[in-house]
Structure formats: C-alpha cells, structure tokens
C-alpha cells in the first residue's frame, strides 16, 4: 500500500496536485488551526467531509491548543503557508522539502497531525527510526486517535524494517568497475637503468667536455702563443693553420660529445624520474604515472592520472 500523507479530516483539504488520478491523498491539517483561520462553522463543516477514496483518514479532530485562539496572526499564516508548501512538495515527491516545511509548521503550531505528516516524510526518506518517533509522538499526543490501529500497524512495519536492516551484514561498496590489479613495484629496474644511463651520459659529457675541451684549449693557447706570444716554437703559417684546424675539430668533437652525453644523461634522468615516480606511486597507491617518451629528435615525459 502506498504511503500517502494523511489528509486531514477537516476541511479545507489541501489536495495535492500533479498526482496521478486515482491516487489522491490528503495531508492532515490541524483542525484547531483551521478553526482559528476559518472560523468554527467552517471547521465543523470541514470535519464532516468524507475521506477521499480509500485513503487512510484521520477522523479525530485535533484538539486546539489552549492558546490557539490567541496565536499571533502572523504565526498562524506562516504555519498555513508552510503547510501548503509542504503539501505541494510532498505532491511532487520532494519529501525532503516537504519534511522541512512540515517541521517549520510544527514549530509554529504544535499539533499531533503535523507529527503524523512528519512521520510520513521520514518514512518516504527511508528513515524508519525518525518516522517511528514521529508516529509515536502523534499517537501519544493525539486524543481519540480513530486510526490508531493503522498507525500502530505502520509503526510495526517500520520496526520490522529496522530489525531486518540490523540483521543484514554490512553492505559492501559497489565498485564502479572491475577491481584494479594490485600494483606491482616496477620501479626498481627503471631506477637502476636510469641511474646507470645518467652516469654513463654524465661520464661521456664530462669526459668529452673536459678532455676534448682541454685539448682544444691547448691548441688555442698554442695558436695564441704563435700570434701574440712571440712564437717560441717557431711555428710556420702552415703549422698555425694545422693548429687551428685541429682546435676546431676538437671543439666540434667537444660539442658533439657533450651534446650526446647530455642527451644520454637526460634520458637517464627521465628514466630515473619515472622509476622514482612509480615507486612513490606504488607506495601511495595512486593512479598517476610518469611515462618516458623517446623520439628521433626529442625525449620527454608524459604525466597521466585520474582527477
């Protein structure tokens, strides 16, 4: 049986719009509040209206609070406004908004019928404990509850639901997809290879740079001694030309060696970085990854991950 907010057994009955035909329901409105708002004759007439369809009805009339007549007119109006908003929200199946407005109405006007409607909202929101509490409050505070048996039956079903939940094992979170394979620590070979390649590259760059650079500098110094230092070795113009050629060849070799060694070292550093990144990733269990890219003319790193 669908759970519907009980329509008040007093008029006017705020019918919920937008519901499919054949499933109307009523929310309960405190009769004393209506009496204050509409006058006693209207309240009596509303109380005589038959319930709509097979909807569960509340035939008892809430007792007007002793100070209902002396309620502030603004509070009364605000309580009715909250009630109407709650009814509309309930009709739109926006039970959270309906609950909020019913609670506001209850704070403005203490009526057992509001507790009944609050219980309905909690029930829709799948909060059986809160719903049971609201229904019990309704039963305790409502005098002459005509549908006590129905409400008690509702409380019993809610308690059964609570027990069922308590007996169920803890629900496991449903994963989005197949579980990821356990990350393997593939960082060690990369770290070793990266360190080795870095060392080789650095050795090539330094060796070539220093060795060939010193040799080139010697040729440069020798040529400088020929041209500016009195030519102590009596080198001819042809000898000086050979010195220059040798020096430039050595310089070219120096540049090439440093460039190649540097490139090798950079590749090694990239591998090392990838290895260290994967090691860190393996420890942190994150999906981010650094991937080296080797091309004909470029070496680089790609960073990928989930955000």
């Amino acid at each position, binding site marked *: 049986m669908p759970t519907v907010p009980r329509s008040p057994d007093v008029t006017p009955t705020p019918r919920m719009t937008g519901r499919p035909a054949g499933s109307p329901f009523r929310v309960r409105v405190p009769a004393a509040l209506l009496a204050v708002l509409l006058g006693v004759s209207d309240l009596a007439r509303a109380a005589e209206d038959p319930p709509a369809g097979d909807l569960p009805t509340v035939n008892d009339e809430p007792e007007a609070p002793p100070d209902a007549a002396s309620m502030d007119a603004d509070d009364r109006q605000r309580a009715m406004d909250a009630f109407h908003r709650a009814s509309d929200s309930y009709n739109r199946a926006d039970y959270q908004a309906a609950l909020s407005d019913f609670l506001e109405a209850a704070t403005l006007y203490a009526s057992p019928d509001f507790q009944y409607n609050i219980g309905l909202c909690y029930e829709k929101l799948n909060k059986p404990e809160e719903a049971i509490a609201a229904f019990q409050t309704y039963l305790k505070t409502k005098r002459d509850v005509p549908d006590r048996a129905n409400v008690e039956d509702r409380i019993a079903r809610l308690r059964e639901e609570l027990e069922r939940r308590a007996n169920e094992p803890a629900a496991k979170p449903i994963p989005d997809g197949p579980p990821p394979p356990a990350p393997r620590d593939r960082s060690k070979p990369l770290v070793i290879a990266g360190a080795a390649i870095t060392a080789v590259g650095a050795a090539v*760059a*330094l060796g070539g*740079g*220093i*060795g*060939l*650079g*010193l040799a*080139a*500098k010697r*040729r*440069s*110094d020798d*040529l*400088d001694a*020929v*041209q*500016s230092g009195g*030519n102590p070795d*009596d*080198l*001819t*113009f*042809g*000898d*000086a*030309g050979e*010195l*220059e050629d040798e*020096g*430039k060849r*050595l*310089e070219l070799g*120096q540049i090439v060696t*440093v460039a190649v060694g540097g490139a090798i070292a950079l590749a090694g550093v990239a591998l090392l970085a990838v290895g260290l990144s994967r090691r860190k990733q393996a420890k942190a269990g994150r999906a981010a990854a650094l991937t080296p890219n080797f091309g004909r003319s470029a070496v680089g790193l790609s960073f990928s991950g989930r955000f």
Partner: protein
Amino acid sequence: MMRRLAAVLVALTGGCFTTDLDPTQVGAFACSEDPGGACPDGQSCVNARCEADGEIPTVQIGFPEDEQDLPLGDTAVGDRRTLEITLSGTLALTPRDGDDVFGEGHLEVTVDDEPSITVDSGSLSSIVTVPVTLDNTVGAHRISVRSVRNDGTPYDHEGGVATRLFFISDGQTPLLGIKSPWPGTEFPLEATSIEVEAAVLRFTLIPADPGGMPQPKTGHIHIYYDKDIEDCIADVEGCDKQYLTTIVQPDQLGKLTIPVAGSAGEFPLSLVLRNVDHSLFEFDPNPDDDIEEAQTFIDEVALVRR
C-alpha cells in the same frame, strides 16, 4: 650559487678553442725555404719570420752603377783612394745600440771583401752619400752593403743586401769580373748546380778554335770550379783543361748554369780569359816599353757549401 654554476660549466667544458688564425699577423709566423714554410699572401720571409711586404727594409747602391768603368783615381796606382758611394732604401737607420725593431738598423759596407764603414744615421728615403776607400788598381772591384738589425742579426732577405761590381780601368786594359755568385755565398750540399753571371770589358767573346790564331783582346772564358787556379794555369797534372765550361758569346755572360758537386766546405769559382785557341790570354798595357808586363785576367770568388 652563480660561482658554483660557473665552476660546473668550466668543469663540463674544460675550455674551448677561442683563437682564430689571423693571416695578417706580422712578424709572428716562422718561415723557411721549405714548402711548408711559406708565408701568407702579402708577406715575405725575413730572418725566419713572415713580415709584411710593405714594411720590409731595403737598401740599394746608386753609385757606382752596375759594371761602371771608373777611371783610376788621382792617387798612385796601388794606393788607397776614396770613393763616395750613394745609398738609398727603406731601412730606418738607427744607432747600433738602439732597440731591435724590425725595419730599423744600420748598414755595414764592405769593399773588396774588406769591412769598410758602418752607416747608422741619415735617411735612406733620400740619398745617403758614404765615403769608402779602396785600392786604386785596374780591375774589378766589389762593394757590398748589408742591412743589419740592432741586435746584430743581418736582414737576410734579398733586398736587405745590395752588391755592386764595378771596374777601375786605365781605359785600355780588358777587364773581367764575376757578378754572381757573390763572394761568400753559401750553397746547400744537395745543390747540383749554380748560376754564374760575369762581365767583361774591352774583350771580344768568340767561339773557341783550337787551331785558330790568337787575336788581340779576343777569345773566350774558362770556368773552373773547385780548382787551384794557379795550378791550372801552370797546367799542373793537366788541370788546365779541367774547366767546366766556356763562355763564348756575350749572351752567355748572363745566367750560366754550371754543375757542382763535392763535400761541405769552401771552394773557389774561377773565370779566366782565354785566347781562341784556349791558350791563356795575356795583355801588356805598355807594349812599347822594354818592360814585359803581360797580365793575365782571372777573377775568383770563394763560395761555401754547407
């Protein structure tokens, strides 16, 4: 931080080639006669260094002129006489105790293989007149003017030395002189030939004719190499006929190549005037007097082979 970075960069490079060859550098490059010892364009080898052509010092002799026939002087024959020679050139004359600067220096004048005078003042860009003394004798005489740096090193390029062969004559006596090689010229051991240049005055060159009749002031020249010319004239051990070649016409007086060989050392190059029949040419300048004064005509220079 920057110092560390610079240190790393220096360590990484170890230095580099920063000097460019400058072919316009003057006085820097060594040079030699070897094929690999050539100088850049626009430079010539002086004292084993490449120097700019326009800055190389030169010296020339203006007077006496080449092969000039000067009359006997006022002094008695055989006595010393003074001759004022004139010099010019680009060498900057400076005192001998000055600094050694390329292009500067002094001149050493040699007359008939004897040191004569040193010139270290004046300006060769104009004409410098220098008095020298020499024997007042008929025959070939030689003047050599050598430019010398102030450190005592002679400028060894071609224009650094000026030579002049000239004659002092009585107006009738034939004259013979070797213009080249100059006395003291050095040749490498591996040289197989040398060029000879000679000059004659008042002597007619004709081809040899062993059966011909000797004629006055006519004949040819015998060239001897590395021979004792006195022995050859005396025909000791057939030396008389051991001449290398002959000069039989004027156009041979220029560059005549003769073969040479032998070990290192000093050797003589001798030229002798011969009659047409190869006999020794003799001339008596005073044929009418009772004194036999027949003269022979020989010129000899000492060369060095190293």
